[in-house]
């Protein structure tokens, strides 16, 4: 393999890349009648974006609170498409995620008046599963999430940036 991305076959980035390319191959194989109409371009963009997110979440699996939250969101999205009556199952999974994340040193958000509660709340909206995290978890998860997001951006690098 001369692909410069695959430095280590089991690294996060290489797992990520493999999944993403597989998904892209499937997307490309779908040849609608008008593959360049704006609607089709938009639909394909959605599929590509979901593929990128799925590759990211499945490469990290359940090792992180944010990846668990993301996987739950992706799965409940596809369940809802296939079967509208699956709300029960989704609710149970969400509880499991919340329980796991609030087990360790649960504190309320206004715990020690450190003066950045608003910024932390804003961050909670951006990190998957952030609403359930205490401050320490939030900071830790954010660092990992950012690393994975930058890897996600690198997936597209063969296209060029501008």
């Amino acid at each position, binding site marked *: 393999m001369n692909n410069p991305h695959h430095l280590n076959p089991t690294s996060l980035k290489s797992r990520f890349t493999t999944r993403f390319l597989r998904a892209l191959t499937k997307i490309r194989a779908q040849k609608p009648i008008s*593959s360049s109409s704006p609607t089709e371009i938009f639909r394909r963009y959605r599929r590509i974006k979901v593929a*990128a997110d799925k590759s990211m979440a499945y490469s990290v699996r359940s090792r992180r609170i944010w990846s668990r939250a993301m996987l739950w969101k992706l799965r409940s999205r596809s369940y809802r498409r296939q079967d509208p009556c699956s709300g029960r199952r989704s609710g149970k999974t969400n509880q499991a995620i919340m329980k796991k994340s609030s087990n360790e040193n649960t504190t309320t958000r206004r715990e020690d008046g450190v003066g950045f509660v608003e910024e932390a709340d804003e961050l909670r909206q951006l990190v998957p599963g952030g609403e359930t995290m205490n*401050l320490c978890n939030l900071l830790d998860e954010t660092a990992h999430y*950012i690393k994975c997001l930058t890897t996600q*951006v690198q997936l597209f690098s063969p*296209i060029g940036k501008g």
Partner: protein
Amino acid sequence: MSSRGLRSRQSSGVSRIRDDQITDLVSKLQLLIPQLRRGRSHKVSASKVLQETCNYIRSLHREVEDLSHRLSELLASTDIDNDQAAIIRSLLM
């Protein structure tokens, strides 16, 4: 016994540990944000770090969206020229 005193001693000890933990985590986060990495290592408040973190995450989200759009457009053309073919081929290999 003075359980209240014991509790307050413990809780202040615990909150000191947590403060240190939080400071540590914030500085680790600071290293990841390109805006904050240049030079000014110790002078950034935690609030600023979190603010810039939010901005950075939003810009990364936008970047992935833009790149997904571009890729979708690339895959749209039925008669792709040589450069685009090479790009797509390198993506799929």
